[in-house]
Structures are given as C-alpha cells and as structure tokens.
C-alpha cells in the first residue's frame, strides 16, 4: 500500500490502521469468547440434565424402567419442541421423548464441535427433527448389569440467537467506533499540524524583497521554536550574502562608471572642435591610462568574486616560505620605492613556513607592501618583520611611516571600495585591502592594523604555521 508523503496523511494512516486492527481484533476475540461461553453453558446444562435422567432409571423388581416426572416432562411432550431424549438399554430403546415424533429419528454421533472426554460423554452439534440445530450429549454408563446410553438434545436456537445478536451488535458498533476514532484522529492531526501551517504561511511571505523579515520564535509552537530559530539563522546568513552581493554589484557598477565617464568626457571634449596632433595625443594617452585602471579594477573584482566563491578551497595548499613571499614583494616594488625615496628594511626569523596557496599569499603580501610605499611620505621607511607569535602562528608585520589611518577608518579600510578621504582621488581602486582580507581569511588567518594618523601605520597579517 502507498503510504502518503504528507505528515497529516501519515499520522492519519497509521492512526486509522492502528485503530482498525485493534477494534477488529477485540471484536473477533469477543465474538469467539461469547460463542465459547454459550456452548460451554449449554454443555453444562445438558450434563446436569443427564445426571437427572440417570436418577430416573431404576430397577423395579427385575425390570429396568425410566419414568419421567411431570416437572421435566413438559418440554419433551410437545412434538419437535427442541427438547429431546432417547435412552437405550443395550441396543434396545428403553425410553424416547414424545417430542421426537418420528421414531426413526436418530442423532448421528459426530457433527460439528465434537468432543469426547473419554469417560463415555460425547458432545456434538447436530440437526434435530425440526431441522433445527441442536446440541447433543450422548452419555454411556453401566448400571443394573447393563449398558445404558442416554442421548439428550437441546435446541441451540436461544444460544445462537444470542450470539447472532452479539455479532450484529459488533458489526454495527465496530465500523461506527472505527469511524469515530478516525475522525478524532483527523481532528488531532489537524490541530497538531496547525502551527506548521501558519509557520509555512509566514515563511512563504518572505522573498528576496523583504529578506529582513523574521519569524517570531515566541509566537510559534514550542516544538517549532528551534526550527524557527534555525530558520531565522539561515535567513540571516542568506540575507548577509545577498546584501553583500547586491552591494558589490552596486559598488562595482559605480566604480566602473567613474573611469567610463572620464573616457566618455575626454572623447566628447576632444570632439568639440578641431585639435592639434599634440592634443589628440594627450587625449588618447589619457583614455589609455583610464582603460588600464579599468582593467585592473575588473581583474580585482573577478579575483574577489572568485575568492567569494571559495576557489581557494580547490587550490593546492602547501608549505610556503615566508622569506620568499617578502623578498618577492620587495623586488616587485623596488622601482616604486626608489621613485618615492622610500627605504625598505626586512628582518625575519629563519625558516618560517606558512601553510597556504603560494600565489594568493604573494598577492596579499605584495598589496600590503605596495600600500606601505604608496601612502608613505617621500623619503619614508617601510619595515617588514616576520616571526612566530605566542600562539604558534606566523605574524608578518608591515610598518610604514606614512599618512596613517584615522581611527574612524580603521574597520572600514578592509571594506570593498572603501577609500579613506585622505587617499580619495589618488591612484587605486579601493579593493586592495579587501582582497588581502579575503585571502588571509581563506587561510584561517587574521589581518589587523594599528596606526597613528599622520605618522605611521602597522598592518599585521597572521597565518597558520606549516
């Protein structure tokens, strides 16, 4: 059988099945028991009558006789009354009830519900002279030097009628009972699941447009509270991701529009009138440098998007030499440092290894060193150190003597596209530090900064040691 998928359906199915089985079993047991009791009581009645009959058989001066007293004779006199007896002495009939009417009628031993208890008592059911069901006791015993066989038959109609009535009662009561119980089960199921329905209604109302709506765990059923809480948690996580994606797209389009506007305006200005070759040259150079900015911006955005998508997890983590990271960064920034007259000094502990993706860690280190030079004062210094810290992690510190970061910007500089007021309008996309942060976090590391505005700042990147 197909078990329904809905909880209500399942509850109802099992409750109905349980109730039906229990009720039917009870009904059958009751019916069988009642029937047994009826038969047993008839058999007992037959037995006690037989005892009376044995008492009625007596020896009168050498002749064995049986006399019926008037008290019990009544039922046996009326033909086919349902009460019969026949007494055999040896093979001869000693006495017969007039109710048998047809003298040739005989009760065949056997039939249904036959029982022989081995002491000359045979109980069985048979068909009587009036074609009625009768219960028969055939009783053998020895007396007066002869064998007697008393056959007593009593109509079962009363007993059967009683059993029939009971059966009818069961057939009527059982279905009604089952139906009532099922109805109750349905009501219980419905009311048990009502909170779930309202829960669903609330959830259905939440779309990407009103993602800040939450379920109220105080208002849901106790059993659903934890579900509501975890659902809210899930919504929070989704909402956060959704919002940051939305913001990223908005910020990205905003940031891309700025160089686009410069390019467009540059073109429009140049096209206003005839220009000298020098002017055209300058305009095209300007456009070219804007497209370079845009390319870098797009590359950074793609890099961030890939970091967000968890690409780092698919890359090969391995032991990375910290000194290599730092020397690569200083090598690549050398000309920039020379232009600005910035001195770079490095002091690292020997044989430091971190566990991570080489190319990503190179990018992060390079970004930090570039920033340290770019936002330094002319003739300033950059000092890079790397050491194991007390928790067994590798801490890489990049200390500069630059413009520093105001305390209000401390948390914001790692945000995408955020640019402190002091550096706005200068080269840079506002993505460098958020890329560093994403890389470091993908390595289970940490990035932090302390600074004294106008004097110095120190970025600390902490990474797990290999």
């Amino acid at each position, binding site marked *: 059988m197909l078990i329904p998928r809905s909880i209500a359906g399942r509850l109802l199915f099992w409750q109905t099945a349980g109730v039906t089985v229990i009720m039917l079993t009870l009904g059958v047991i009751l019916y069988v028991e009642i029937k047994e009791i009826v038969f047993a009581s008839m058999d007992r009645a037959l037995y006690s009558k037989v005892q009376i009959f044995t008492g009625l058989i007596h020896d009168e001066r050498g002749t064995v006789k049986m006399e019926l007293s008037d008290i019990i004779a009544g039922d046996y006199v009326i033909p086919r009354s349902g009460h019969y007896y026949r007494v055999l002495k040896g093979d001869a009939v000693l006495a017969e009830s007039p109710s048998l009417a047809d003298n040739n009628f005989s009760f065949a031993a056997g039939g249904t519900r036959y029982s022989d208890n081995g002491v000359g008592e045979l109980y069985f059911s048979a068909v009587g002279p009036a074609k009625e069901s009768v219960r028969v006791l055939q009783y053998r015993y020895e007396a007066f030097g002869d064998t007697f066989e008393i056959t007593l038959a009593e109509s079962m109609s009363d007993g059967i009628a009683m059993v029939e009535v009971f059966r009818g009662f069961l057939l009527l009561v059982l279905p009604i009972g089952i139906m009532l119980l099922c109805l109750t089960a349905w009501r219980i199921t419905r009311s048990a699941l009502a909170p779930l329905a309202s829960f669903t209604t609330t959830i259905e109302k939440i779309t990407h447009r009103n993602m800040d709506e939450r379920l109220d765990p105080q208002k849901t059923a106790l059993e659903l509270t934890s579900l509501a809480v975890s659902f809210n948690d899930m919504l929070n996580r989704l909402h956060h991701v959704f919002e940051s994606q939305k913001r990223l797209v*908005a910020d990205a*389009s*905003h940031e891309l*529009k*700025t160089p*686009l*506007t*410069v*390019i*467009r*305006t*540059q073109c*429009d*200005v140049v096209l*206003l*009138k005839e220009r000298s070759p020098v002017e055209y040259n300058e305009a095209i150079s*300007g456009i070219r440098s*804007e497209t370079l900015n845009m390319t870098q911006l797009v590359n950074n955005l793609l890099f961030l998007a890939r970091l967000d998508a968890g690409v780092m997890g698919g890359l090969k983590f391995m032991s990375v030499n910290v000194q290599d990271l730092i020397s690569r960064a200083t090598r690549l920034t050398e000309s920039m440092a020379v232009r600005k007259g910035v001195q770079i000094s490095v002091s690292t502990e020997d044989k430091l290894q971190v566990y991570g993706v080489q190319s990503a860690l190179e990018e992060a280190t390079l970004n930090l060193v570039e920033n340290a030079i770019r936002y330094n004062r002319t003739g300033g210094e950059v000092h890079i150190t790397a050491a194991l810290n007390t928790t067994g992690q590798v801490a890489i510190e990049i200390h500069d003597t630059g413009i520093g970061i105001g305390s209000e910007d401390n948390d914001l500089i790692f945000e995408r596209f955020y640019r402190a*007021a002091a550096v*706005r*309008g200068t080269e840079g996309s506002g993505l460098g530090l958020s890329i560093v942060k994403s890389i470091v976090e993908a390595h289970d590391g940490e990035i932090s900064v302390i600074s004294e505005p106008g004097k110095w700042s120190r970025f600390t990147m902490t990474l797990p040691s290999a």
Partner: protein
Amino acid sequence: MKILVIEDEKRLAQLLKQGLEEQGFIVDLAYDGSEGQFQAEHYPYDAILLDLSLPVVDGLTILKALREQGNGVPVLIITARGDVGDRIRGLNLGADDYLAKPFDLEELIARIHDLIRRSRGQSSPQLKIGSLIINTNSRTVTRSESEITLSAREYDLLAYLALNAGRVVSRTELIDHIYSTDCELDSNVIDVYINYLRNKIDKTFSPPLIHTVRGAGYILEERP
C-alpha cells in the same frame, strides 16, 4: 556664465572644465565637499554641477545647506549612483536636474544652458530684446536680421545682460559672472566692454538697447 563644478575625480573635473570653457563658460573647480560648499556659499554662480559621493561633505548635504540658506542657484546633479531613490532624494532636496554618469557632454551643456535660462525666467533658447536676437545654443547674435560678430567676452556680457533684461545689473555682478573667481579686476574693465558692445549693437541700429544707470550699473531693455 559662471559655473562651479564640485567633483572629486580630478581627471573628470579638469575635462569638464576644459569642455565647458571651450563652450564659453567660466568654470571654477572644487575637489571635495567642504571646498565646494564654501565656494557655492560665497561666490555667485549661474549654475552648479554637483557630484553626490564626495569626500568630507557629500553632495546632498551641500544641496540641502544651500537651499536652507535660501540660495536658489540652479543645481545639476551628476552622479554614478544610478538608483531612482537617489534621484528622487536629490530632486526633493531642490536639485534642478539630474544626469547619470557616464553622460554626453553636449547633453550636459544643453541642460546647463536650459537651467540657467529657466532660472532667469526664460524658456526659449532665443533671447529677444526688440530687434536684437541672441541664440544661446549657437552663441550667435543678430540685430534686425543682420549678424553681429562678438568676441567671447562681449558675448558673455551681452548674454548675461539679456538673461537679466529689464533689470539693472551692477558692474561687480557682471565681473562675478563673466570672469573666473581668481581674477582680480577693476570694474572699469566692464565699461570698456560695454563700450565695444554699444559700438556693435547700438551704433548702427536704433533705438539703443544698452542704457547706463548712473551709480548702479547697466540695463538692457527696449525703451519706447
């Protein structure tokens, strides 16, 4: 016509200055919000181009402050923030127009012209005073259907007087609107240009349209 451009992207600001100046505008630049707000509050401009995301003080704050001070200078917002909410907020705060980046320079120029005209109660790009017709789009001037050639400065002076036709305009006001803010000039320079103008538009035609109001300035109007 003097315009203030408040835009933190320096490359763009300088390009706008170049483009607008080549179209005969006088352009002052401000690269951040506080500088822009100071200039807008202290110097008379015919229009302001305002970027919204600015360092120090953002564009909407400047706009709000100007309008609260009762400064009705036409403001055109230029921003990369494209969403309708910002646009509505800007217009509600009293911006006169809104242009999304990246924009077309010619459209920007047309809108500035339009804003300035409307702020002076003129709706047509053609200004008419008697038989004198000034086309602000093509920067051409005709009187009695004959074309008059003016230098850039002469045109600026005439256009400003025409926009304020029927009103006495002082020499200082004229200097404020047709010279860049950092120019330190004697107001006599105006008298020199007025003289040139009279020679070109009033000398061979009648009646004269430029009139001197003693002790106050000049007025451009047709007197019966």
